[in-house]
C-alpha cells in the first residue's frame, strides 16, 4: 500500500462529510420526517413537477448549446495567436466572477422587448425575456466557462503530428477533425458538459431576473424552494430539494459512467 493512504483517506472523508455529506443527510432526514404519503403529495404536485421539468429541461438544453459553441471557442483560444486573444481569454471567466444577479438583470434588460437584442427579435415574434427561452439564455451564460476551461488544456495537448499523420494518409481537414480530433476530445467534452449541466441545474440568481417566474410556465425548481420557505412551508421545500438532489445525483452518476467508458474507449494514453 502507498504510504500515507490511511491518513489522507481519513482526511478526505472527514472533509467531504463536513462539507457535503452532513448537510445533504440533514436534508434527507427532514424530508424523511414528512412521512411517505405527505412527501409523495408535496413532491409530485403539478406545480413542482412543472418547475422540475423547466429546471432540468433548460439546463440540459443550455449545456448542449454550451458544448456546441464552447468547443470552437476553446479551440480558437488555444490554437491561434491573434491580437486580443488574452483579453478574450480573460473574458471567458467573467461569468464565474460576476454576481449572478447582475448577469440576470443585464440579460433581462438586453432581451426585454424594448432592449437592444429583444427589440431586434420582437418583430420576428421571438420573445426571450420572461419566457423559458430566457432561462436557457441565462444558463448558457453561466455555463460557458465550464466547457471552455475544461477543454483548453486538452486541446493544447493534441499533438500536431497526429494531424499531419492524418493528412499524409489522405484525410481532408474535415475528416481529420471528425475522425481524429473530436474523438480525442470526447472525454473532456463530457466533463465540461457535466459541469455546465450541474451548475445550470442549481442556478438561481440570474434566472429569477430574466425568467418572469410564472408558475407552470417559467418557474424553476430552486425558486419554488425559496417560495415554499417564504411560506414557512419547510416540509414542501425539503421535498422539492430532495427530489432535485435525487435527479441531479442520478444524472451526474450516469455522465460519470459514460465518461469512464469513453476514457477507456478514446482516452488510451500514448
Amino acid at each position: 500500500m502507498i504510504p500515507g493512504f490511511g491518513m489522507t483517506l481519513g482526511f478526505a472523508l472527514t472533509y467531504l462529510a463536513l462539507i457535503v455529506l452532513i448537510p445533504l443527510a440533514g436534508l434527507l432526514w427532514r424530508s424523511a420526517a414528512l412521512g411517505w404519503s405527505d412527501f409523495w403529495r408535496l413532491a409530485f404536485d403539478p406545480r413542482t413537477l412543472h418547475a422540475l421539468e423547466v429546471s432540468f429541461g433548460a439546463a440540459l438544453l443550455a449545456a448542449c448549446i454550451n458544448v456546441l459553441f464552447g468547443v470552437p471557442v476553446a479551440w480558437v483560444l488555444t490554437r491561434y495567436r491573434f491580437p486580443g486573444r488574452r483579453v478574450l481569454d480573460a473574458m471567458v471567466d467573467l461569468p464565474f466572477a460576476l454576481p449572478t444577479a447582475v448577469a440576470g438583470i443585464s440579460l433581462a434588460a438586453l432581451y426585454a422587448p424594448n432592449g437592444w437584442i429583444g427589440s431586434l427579435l420582437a418583430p420576428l415574434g421571438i420573445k426571450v425575456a420572461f419566457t423559458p427561452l430566457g432561462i436557457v439564455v441565462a444558463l448558457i451564460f453561466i455555463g460557458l466557462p465550464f466547457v471552455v476551461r475544461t477543454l483548453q488544456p486538452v486541446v493544447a495537448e493534441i499533438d500536431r503530428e497526429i494531424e499531419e499523420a492524418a493528412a499524409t494518409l489522405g484525410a481532408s481537414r474535415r475528416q481529420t477533425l471528425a475522425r481524429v480530433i473530436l474523438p480525442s476530445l470526447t472525454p473532456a467534452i463530457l466533463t465540461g458538459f457535466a459541469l455546465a449541466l450541474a451548475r445550470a441545474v442549481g442556478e438561481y440568481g440570474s434566472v429569477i431576473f430574466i425568467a418572469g417566474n410564472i408558475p407552470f410556465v417559467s418557474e424553476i425548481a430552486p425558486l419554488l424552494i425559496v417560495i415554499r420557505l417564504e411560506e414557512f412551508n419547510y416540509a414542501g421545500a425539503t421535498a422539492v430539494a430532495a427530489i432535485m438532489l435525487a435527479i441531479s445525483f442520478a444524472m451526474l452518476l450516469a455522465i460519470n459512467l459514460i465518461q469512464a467508458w469513453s476514457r477507456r474507449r478514446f482516452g488510451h494514453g500514448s
Partner: protein
Amino acid sequence: MDVSILDVRKDFDRFPALHGVSLEIRSGELVALLGPSGSGKTTLLRLIAGLEFPTEGCIRFGEDDASTRSVQERNVGFVFQSYALFRHMTVLDNIAFGLRVRPRASRPPRRAIRARALELLDLVQLPGLEGRFPSQLSGGQRQRVALARALAIEPRILLLDEPFGALDAKVRKELRRWLRDLHDSTGHTTVFVTHDQEEALELADRVVVMSQGRIEQVGTPDEIYDAPNSPFVYGFIGESSALPVEVDDGEVRTADRPTGLRVEGLEGPATLFFRPRDVDIVEGAGPSIAGVAVAVRRREDGRRVELEVGPARHRVEVELPLGRRVVTGERLGLRPRRWKLFSADDPARSVDWATAGAGAAAAAAGPLPLALERQ
C-alpha cells in the same frame, strides 16, 4: 518513383533552414539524410512530404511537379519519430485509416480494407495484435504499426523521420535489419532521416550528409567513409583527428617541423585529417608528426593512444597494434598512411594521399627518396 529536388530553399520567418538544395533520388533507392540537429534534414523530408512548402525551388515526383500539390494529393507514406498513432483507434483501425478516408469512388469495400490491414500486420510481423490499442504496445511494435499504416495507402515514396530515434539500442538494431529486408522485398523508394551515422552507413544505398542547411556530400557508404569531400564530413563520419598544418613549398609542416608528407597544388595553412587506424609509428629519426602520449586505452583489437602535438598541444588519436607497448609520457613519431588535406583558406581545395602525386608516394617510402627529390 524518381524524386528530383531542384534548388530548394526554405526560410522559416526569414531564418534560412535550407539554402538551395538539389538532390536526385532514384526509384527503389534507400536513401539516408544524415546530419547533426539543425542541419535541415528533417525540413528536407517534410518538404518532400508536402508538410512544408519550399520558399523557392521545386520538387518533382517523376515528371509530376509535386511542389504545387497538397500533402493529401502527394500520396506519400510518412512515419513520424513519435509514431503519431491515433490512440483512440485499434491497431487495425489505425492501419485501415488511410483507405477508409478515401473518397467513395476509390475506396475499397469494407472487407477488402480489413483484409489489406491484416495482411500488412503480417508483413510487419505483428499478427494477432489488430484489436490492441497503441498504448498496449511496446515502442518497437508501435513503430511497426506506424510503418504498416504508412504502407497501407500504397505510397509513391516512403519517408521516415528518425524512425528508430526513440527505441533502445537492441530494438534499434533488430528493426534496422528488418527495415532493410522490408525495403528489399517491397521495393519502395525510401528516404529516412537520422543523426546516427552507423544507422545511415549500414542501412542506406546512398547517404546524404547535411550540415547547416546544405548538402555536404552524397554518396554510397563506401564513398562517404573512404573519400569524405569536406572537413565537416571527415569530422562527422567515423573517427578522425584534425591537425592544423602549414604547406611550405610542397612540404607539409606542423609545429615548424616537417611531417614527412609532401603535396602538390596546395600551399599555405591547411588542416590535415586522418583516421586513428591509418597511422604508422615512425621509429627512430626521420621527419614525422611528433607527439607525447597522454592517454592509452586498451581496445578489443588494438591500443588507442591519445597524443598531444606541438606546443599548442593539439590532440590526435591513433590506434596501434597490440604488440607496440606505449606508456604515457612517451614521445612518438607518427606518419598517416591515408590522409586528406583541406586548405584553411578555401576548404573546397584539397589533396589526399592517393592524389598527392609522386612526391607523396616517395615521401611515404622513407626519408631517402625525399632527400633525393629535394635536390
